[in-house]
């Protein structure tokens, strides 16, 4: 119970920090915020920074280059806007990865029994199915010495989706029986 409250408090603090970072429009303050998040990350700083860059790089690069082009056409300086937007995106994304690393979301959502159950069931199923999806992808790669054709990739995707649906429904039936036998629906 004590731990659950700790995680719920961190969830609230995270929500507050997110709101604050979107209300601040001064790049120096956002840079300080980013520095604070990185200090709080401690030994995980490299991992969090790399994950952040992996997530935001493509989108931010597209937006930034597009805006530079637009600014050139309009004869305005793009740098103030780009520094502000990119600093904000970096701060918020690093903060989210720090939150993911430090907070147990299942305990943070412990205030709702239904929500926790749904999250636990969906997350456990998603992890299992994600692994299966990766297995299917690797199976296609390992069985095709040359690059698979578009038709082959469509067929592989369709077979994976069909298998996942079948597995999902069978899993739903088993989970239903397990929940009923443990009295979950009696309350």
């Amino acid at each position: 119970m004590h731990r659950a409250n700790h995680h719920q408090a961190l969830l609230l603090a995270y929500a507050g920090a997110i709101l604050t970072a979107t209300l601040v429009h001064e790049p120096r303050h956002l840079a300080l915020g980013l520095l604070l998040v990185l200090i709080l990350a401690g030994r995980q700083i490299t991992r969090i920074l790399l994950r952040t860059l992996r997530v935001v790089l493509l989108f931010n690069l597209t937006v930034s280059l597009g805006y530079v082009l637009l600014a050139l056409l309009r004869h305005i300086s793009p740098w103030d806007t780009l520094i502000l937007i990119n600093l904000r995106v970096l701060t918020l994304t690093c903060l989210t990865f720090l939150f993911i690393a430090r907070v147990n979301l299942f305990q943070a959502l412990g205030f709702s029994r239904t929500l926790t159950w749904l999250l636990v069931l969906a997350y456990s199923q998603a992890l299992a199915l994600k692994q299966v999806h990766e297995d299917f992808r690797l199976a296609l790669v390992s069985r095709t010495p040359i690059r698979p054709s578009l038709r082959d990739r469509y067929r592989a995707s369709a077979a994976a989706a069909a298998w996942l649906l079948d597995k999902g429904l069978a899993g739903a039936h088993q989970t239903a029986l397990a929940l009923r036998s443990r009295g979950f629906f009696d309350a």
Partner: protein
Amino acid sequence: MHIPDGFISPQTYLPAYALCAGLWWMGMHRLRARLDEATLPYVAVLTALSFVLMMVALPLPGGTTAHAAGIALLAVSLGVWMAFLAVSMVLAMQALLFGDGGITALAVNALAMGFLGSLSARITWRLLRPLHEGAALWLAGWVSVVLPALAVALVLGLQPVIAQDAAGKPLFFPFGLRVTLPALLMPHALVGVGEGILTWLGYRYLTRLRQRHAT
């Protein structure tokens, strides 16, 4: 359609969260009324399936890929409210457990993809089903992708107007509607074709599986 954090202003995401919270509450209320040993795991499993479907990349000519979402399949199979909750759960899991998609964009995405996508798909399917089930399913899938894309394009494209500094420079997403509408609608009109086919095939396959599991 996944928007990272930092591109949506608080003037947009706070009202979106308020609206979403009301809809989530209504959805949970309706779900609890239907909650039993059949519905709870079914919703959880279909939520997980939607999560994985978003990872199954559909190759497009030219080397690019697009992912399915399964929103129309959820809407025609489970109804609007359950589909809305399921898609919201997927988006929340992606944002808070895997860091994919922004937390500030979560409510906007949930409203656009989860609510508008599910509602438009369900209405299309219900209206056209008596005429031709296959066409109704395909169009439900197409609409469930294109209408949310339109909504997200409007939200993003209005950011420079909603949030700007004293000099008129954008504080969040910097492009207007002239950029966002074609940039989002054109690829999603194509993605919708694939989503429509997925909905049609998925629904037929799901119906067959249900009959097999029932016997």
